C-alpha cells in the first residue's frame, strides 16, 4: 500500500486512475481545482469517496506542498486540455500546465527522498503530424501542412523531399516533436520538465503519451475537448457533428480503461522509468467513421457535416506505435472501439450535453477555423 497523490484526480482520466489505485489498496489523495469548464460548477461528481480530497490549484505552492505531505507516488494529471481554446487563452494554458508543473516539481524536489515515482500525463499532440512513409523517399517526418495547401483544400500530407503523397505509418516515441498548438507546447514542456528533473534528482518518472482518450466520465459539459464527447453531445442535441477537412483524417482512439492499465503498470514496474511511452491502440480510424459509429450507437439518423474547413494547428494523421509500451510496461490495449463506444454512449445518454456552437464560434472569431 502506497500513499499516492493524483493531481486532477476528479477529472475524466484522473478519477478512473483514483478508482483503480484504491481498488489496489493504495491510500489516495486528490488535488483538483474543479475547473468550472470541466465540472460545470458542480462538486467532484466522480471522486471516489475513499479518496482524500483537496480542492485547489496546482499553481498554489503552499497547497501543493501540503498535498505532498506523506506522499510516496505522484500522478500528475492536472492540466487544461482544449487544443483550440489554448490558442486564444494562451496565458491560462501556460500557467496551468507549465507553471503548475514547475510548482509541483519544485515541491517534489524539496521532498525528494520521500517521492519514489512520478507518472505524468503527456499527449500525442506533442508530435504534431504523425510519422509517414513515402514510396520513393522512405520514412518522412513532415511538419504541418503549409497554409497554401490547406487553402487549396488539399488535405493529405506531401512528402517534404519529393512532393508525392506520403502514407501515414505508426508513430513511435523517437519521432521529432513539432507541437503545433499552445496546448501541445505546454504538454511537451510538462513532459520534458518531469523527465529532466526526475533524471537530475533520481526520481523515477514515466511520461505516458496518451492518444485520443474516450470513455465514461468524459466531460460533455466541456465543449472544448474530446472529439467523441463533442460529437456525442451534438448528436444528443439532434445536431450534426461538425467535421473539419474531409473527415478522412485518422486518429487512434484509446479507451480510458487502457489508459488506467498503463498508469497502473507504470507504478508496478521500473522498466519504463525515465521514459516517454505512447499509450494508444495502434489502430487508426477516420473521424468520419467515429462520427457514424456514434450516431449509429445513439440510434440517430444524423450524418456528419463535412465542413471542408481546417482548424489552425490540426494534424492529418497520427496513430500510435505501441511497441515501447508493450516492451517496457507489458501494456496491451484490451478495449476495442466496437466495445468501448457502446459503453461511452451509455454514459452519454445520462448526460446533459453542452452546446458546442459557442466553442466553434470562438475559434472562428479568432480566425482559427478557415
Amino acid at each position, binding site marked *: 500500500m502506497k500513499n499516492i497523490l493524483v493531481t486532477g484526480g476528479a477529472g475524466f482520466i484522473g478519477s478512473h486512475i483514483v478508482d483503480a489505485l484504491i481498488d489496489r489498496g493504495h491510500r489516495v489523495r486528490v488535488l483538483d481545482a474543479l475547473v468550472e469548464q470541466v465540472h460545470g460548477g458542480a462538486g467532484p461528481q466522480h471522486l471516489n469517496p475513499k479518496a482524500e480530497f483537496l480542492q485547489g490549484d496546482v499553481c498554489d505552492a503552499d497547497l501543493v506542498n501540503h498535498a505532498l505531505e506523506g506522499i510516496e507516488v505522484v500522478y500528475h494529471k492536472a492540466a487544461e486540455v482544449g487544443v483550440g481554446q489554448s490558442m486564444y487563452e494562451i496565458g491560462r494554458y501556460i*500557467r496551468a500546465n507549465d507553471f503548475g508543473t*514547475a510548482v509541483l516539481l519544485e515541491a517534489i524536489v524539496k521532498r525528494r527522498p520521500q517521492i519514489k515515482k512520478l507518472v505524468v500525463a503527456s499527449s500525442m499532440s506533442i508530435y504534431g503530424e504523425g510519422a509517414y512513409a513515402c514510396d520513393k523517399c522512405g520514412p518522412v517526418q513532415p511538419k504541418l501542412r503549409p497554409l497554401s495547401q490547406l487553402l487549396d483544400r488539399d488535405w493529405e500530407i506531401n512528402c517534404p523531399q519529393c512532393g508525392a503523397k506520403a502514407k501515414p505509418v505508426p508513430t513511435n516515441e523517437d519521432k521529432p516533436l513539432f507541437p503545433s498548438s499552445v496546448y501541445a*507546447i505546454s504538454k511537451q514542456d510538462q513532459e520534458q520538465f518531469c523527465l529532466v528533473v526526475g533524471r537530475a534528482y533520481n526520481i523515477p518518472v514515466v511520461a505516458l503519451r496518451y492518444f485520443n482518450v474516450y470513455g465514461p466520465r468524459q466531460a460533455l459539459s466541456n465543449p472544448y475537448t474530446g472529439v467523441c464527447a463533442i460529437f456525442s453531445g451534438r448528436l444528443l442535441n439532434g445536431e450534426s457533428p461538425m467535421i473539419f477537412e474531409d473527415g478522412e483524417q485518422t486518429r487512434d482512439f484509446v479507451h480510458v480503461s487502457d489508459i488506467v492499465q498503463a498508469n497502473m503498470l507504470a507504478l508496478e514496474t521500473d522498466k519504463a522509468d525515465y521514459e516517454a511511452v505512447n499509450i494508444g491502440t495502434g489502430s487508426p480510424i477516420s473521424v468520419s467513421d467515429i462520427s457514424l459509429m456514434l450516431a449509429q450507437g445513439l440510434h440517430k439518423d444524423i450524418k456528419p457535416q463535412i465542413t471542408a474547413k481546417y482548424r489552425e494547428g490540426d494534424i492529418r494523421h497520427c496513430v500510435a506505435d505501441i511497441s515501447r509500451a508493450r516492451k517496457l510496461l507489458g501494456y496491451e490495449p484490451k478495449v476495442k472501439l466496437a466495445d468501448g463506444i457502446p459503453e461511452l454512449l451509455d454514459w452519454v445518454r445520462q448526460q446533459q450535453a453542452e452546446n458546442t456552437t459557442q466553442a466553434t464560434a470562438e475559434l472562428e472569431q479568432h*480566425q482559427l477555423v478557415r
Partner: protein
Amino acid sequence: MNIWITGCNGFVGTRLAQHLVANQHDVTALSPQDCTAASQTVTIDLTAQDAPRVIERLAAPEVVVHAYSKEPGPGELIDFVDANVHATSNLIEGLTQQPPRMIIYTSTLSVYGRPSLIPVDEAGPAGGTLPYGATKRWAEQLLETFQRYARIVVLRLPSIYGANQQESFVDNLARAAQRDEPIELLARGELVRDALHISDVLRAVDNCISQPPAETFTILNLGCGKRTTTMEYARALVDALGSKSDITPVDRVTSDFDFYADISAARQQIAFAPMSLADSMKVYADELR
C-alpha cells in the same frame, strides 16, 4: 514608429530602448519598474495572471521587441518558467485582439545545448537544457503559434558584451584587463566562443524593423560568424584597451564547450554584418573609457 519593449531594465533591453529612442521611435517599456531609457513606461508584471487584460487595454504598437527574460545562471525552475514562458504566453494573449506588425524576440543560442557539429545553423536540433535554454526554446515555440497574427522574428543571441554588462565572459576579461591584472584562460585559451558587442544586436534589430524577413516566422542566429577562441578575444581586448595584462593559457579544463553559430541566414535575410573582432573591441574599449 510606436514600439514596445519588454525587459527594458535588463542590459539588452535598456540598450535597445536607448537606441530606438535616439532613432526617433516612440518607445514604450512594459515593465514592473520605471524604465528611464524608454519614452514612457506602462507598469505591468508580465507574469501576472491579469497581464493579458492590461495589454488589451493599451493602444496597439507597430512592433514589439520582447527582451524580457530570466537570464542564465542560478535560480529556481519556477522563476525561469514564469519569466521565459508564462510572460511570453501572457504577452501574445494580450496582443491577440490588436496584434502588432511584428514581434522581435531576443532568444539565445543556448537553445542548441551542446551541438555535435559547429557552426550550428537554425536547422540544428534545438531543445536546450533546463532551465534556461529549454524555457527560451519553449517561448520561441509559443511565438511560432502567433505567426498568423504577426510576423515573428526570433534572434538567437550569443554572449553579449558592452559597458555595464555584468554577465558575459568578455566583460569578465575586460574587468581584469582594465586593472592590468593577469588573465588566465582555461583550456589553454583554445575554447571557441561566440560573442557580440551589443551594438551589433542593435543594428540587427534596426534591420529587422526596416527590412523584415519575408516569412511570417523566422529564426536567425546572431553571432560573430567566425571560429574565435577565448585567446583571440582576450588579445583583441587587451590590445584595444592598451592593457598591460599578461594572458596565460592554463591546462585546467572547463565545463564550457566549443561553440559558434552559422549566421549565413541572418546575413542573407536581414543583411546582418557583425563588426570584426578588432573593431568590436575598439568600440567596447571606447565605451569603457
